[in-house]
């Protein structure tokens, strides 16, 4: 044992940093990936899908019913592709995915509007792709104010003032948690960070083995922990830059709210970056080649995307999937980021996720150290 030497860590750190900067392509990719990903995803979010297939079940054939359908059409979000006669028919259309919206105007709609207070129309939404239906839903909010403006005349003119003449009841189907654009952008932070960082360290150690430079490293008095810290440090910086890029882009391009929780968010980001890098290091102790390291990193990305609550709502997953999800750092990081940016959570709400991330860093580092080979055996 040589103890721990900051100078030797520094040696590895400087070397890594030089190699990283010299490898222009990788360096550029590391910085471009966040921007490209975010723009691509952001596009899908910002892209306001219009003319979505909609079915209407009008149980009364009234002036008001026609006015509502016309208003929906005018918003340009809804295309009335189907007229149906029964609720069962409507239901089937939604279930089969032939329409994304099902509007029901009840039979006593006109009477209730006239009486005032409790008139409703029902809009059922296939929310399995919320980025597609979100903008249309937003447009629905203005409907009660405006749809009947021209038709409330005579004795009903007073209904046009004050409270809206009816309510729109939105019923989400297939995706109760309803992930919105704001949900996705903060989530991307976790996914992009792990995608790039895990792979970078996984490659950086296997590259030494593949090029034969590991022999030089092992022949020196370097301790495994010194190699690990020295190798991780430059990428921590890269991770922080990526985070800044993503947050600024999210704010500027997509206006994602940033409610607060900065201390927890910063702590969590640091832990998450170190954890991802340490995981990459662990992978590299198992991989025999850069190709293997790459494959393992990609393999790790699958549950990170699918089971972390990024792609699908966490609460909607079966128990076994949730159990796997809990073991993945992205899951906790996502909660932390969403909690901070969207809800303004404070340390009091965040400590559980922070603890989970911290535990992950410790466990992975311990495993990596245990697995790191001090010899070529």
């Amino acid at each position, binding site marked *: 044992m040589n103890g721990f030497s900051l100078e030797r860590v520094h*040696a590895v750190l400087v070397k890594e940093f030089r190699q990283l900067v010299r490898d222009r392509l990788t360096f550029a990719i590391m910085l471009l990936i966040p921007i490209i990903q975010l723009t691509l995803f952001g596009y899908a979010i910002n892209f306001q899908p219009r003319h979505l297939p909609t079915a209407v079940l009008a149980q009364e054939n009234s002036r008001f019913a026609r006015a509502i359908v016309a208003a929906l059409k005018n918003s340009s979000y809804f295309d009335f592709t189907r007229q149906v006669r029964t609720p069962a028919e409507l239901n089937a259309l939604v279930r089969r995915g032939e329409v994304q919206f099902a509007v029901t105007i009840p039979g006593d709609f006109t009477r209730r509007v006239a009486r005032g207070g409790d008139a409703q129309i029902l809009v059922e939404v296939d929310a399995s792709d919320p980025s597609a239906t979100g903008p249309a839903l937003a447009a629905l909010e203005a409907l009660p104010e405006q749809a009947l403006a021209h038709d409330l005349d005579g004795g009903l003119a007073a209904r046009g003032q004050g409270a809206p003449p009816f309510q729109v009841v939105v019923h989400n189907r297939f995706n109760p948690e309803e992930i919105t654009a704001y949900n996705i952008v903060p989530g991307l932070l976790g996914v992009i960070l792990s995608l790039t960082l895990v792979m970078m360290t996984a490659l950086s150690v296997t590259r030494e083995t593949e*090029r*034969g*430079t590991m*022999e030089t490293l092992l*022949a020196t008095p370097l301790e495994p922990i010194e190699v690990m810290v020295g190798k991780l440090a430059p990428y921590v910086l890269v991770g922080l830059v990526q985070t800044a890029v993503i947050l600024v882009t999210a704010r500027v391009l997509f206006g994602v709210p940033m409610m607060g929780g900065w201390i927890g968010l910063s702590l969590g980001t640091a832990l998450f970056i170190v954890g991802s890098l340490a995981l990459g290091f662990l992978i590299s102790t198992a991989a025999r080649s850069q190709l293997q390291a790459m494959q393992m990193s990609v393999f790790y990305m699958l549950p990170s995307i699918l089971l972390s609550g990024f792609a699908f709502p966490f609460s909607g997953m079966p128990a076994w999937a949730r159990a796997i999800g809990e073991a993945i750092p992205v899951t906790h990081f996502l909660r932390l980021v969403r909690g901070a940016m969207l809800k303004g959570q404070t340390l009091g709400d965040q400590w559980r996720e922070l603890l989970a991330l911290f535990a992950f860093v410790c466990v992975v580092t311990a495993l990596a150290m245990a697995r790191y080979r001090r010899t070529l055996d």
Partner: protein
Amino acid sequence: MTLAIDVTGLNKSFGDKHVVQDVAIQVEEGRICGFLGPNGSGKTTTLRMLCGLLTPDSGRGTCLGFDIVTQADQIKRRTGYMTQRFSLYDDLSIAENLEFIARVYRLDRQRERVDAALEHLGLASRRRQLAGTLSGGWKQRLALASATLHDPKLLLLDEPTAGVDPKARRTFWDEIHELAARGLTVLVSTHYMDEAERCHEIAYISYGRLIARGTAESVVAGSHLVTFNGEGPDIGRLAHEIAGRPGVETVAPFGAALHVSGTDRKALEAAIAPFRREPFHWQAAQPTLEDVFIHLMGQAEDNWPGGSPP
């Protein structure tokens, strides 16, 4: 007399391949020991065990007075190891590679040492060139500079002059002798006979077994090899005819001459008798190291357990 390297009974297997078998090496301080043997005989594996890069399956001993099994860290700090394959960073410059080594060994006066090493190498003006873009010979010299940067007491060099031109090789060896004169112990593997002859002593390993050890002369003498040197116009054409005859172990052309060797003088004389006529001239000669090694290799094959070697 202190032994810088003193190990016995070294064994190493990879899977069921027993690549180093009961190897013992002793090298006195300040001596240069040549480590010879055919490809795959276990030279690199042995060197790696000496500097702690591989753990021996069994065997014990010391390097520089430190136990090779339990004190590998101490040995590493005082040993310069030059790998067979260039193993510095291709994507770092010459100076950056040396700086890295200087830092890792926590040397004092780092800048000074790196500058001195560059000056000594004659690479001071190219210090910013990427190591990967150096020619093969220059890479080897850089690797030696980096292996000696921390003033090691023991140098393990694995084929340091492979692919190096004769003049650079001579400089290289002059330098190794200079280092040895200052008290460094050097164990150097090589395939070149002229280099073997420049060593204070040699160790010959074949199929994982050490089969000869000592000074070049004593190894030659110990082989009990008899060699005849034949000269004459186009004598090379006789090589085939002679090679098959009983008592002849090796036939090797040496320029215009032919070296015929065997351990049985009588049989050997009988074998060349038919060719002892004009225009050929035959003379008993001193076997060269190469004759001896080729002979040793043949013997090792005969001794290989279970027939032919892998």
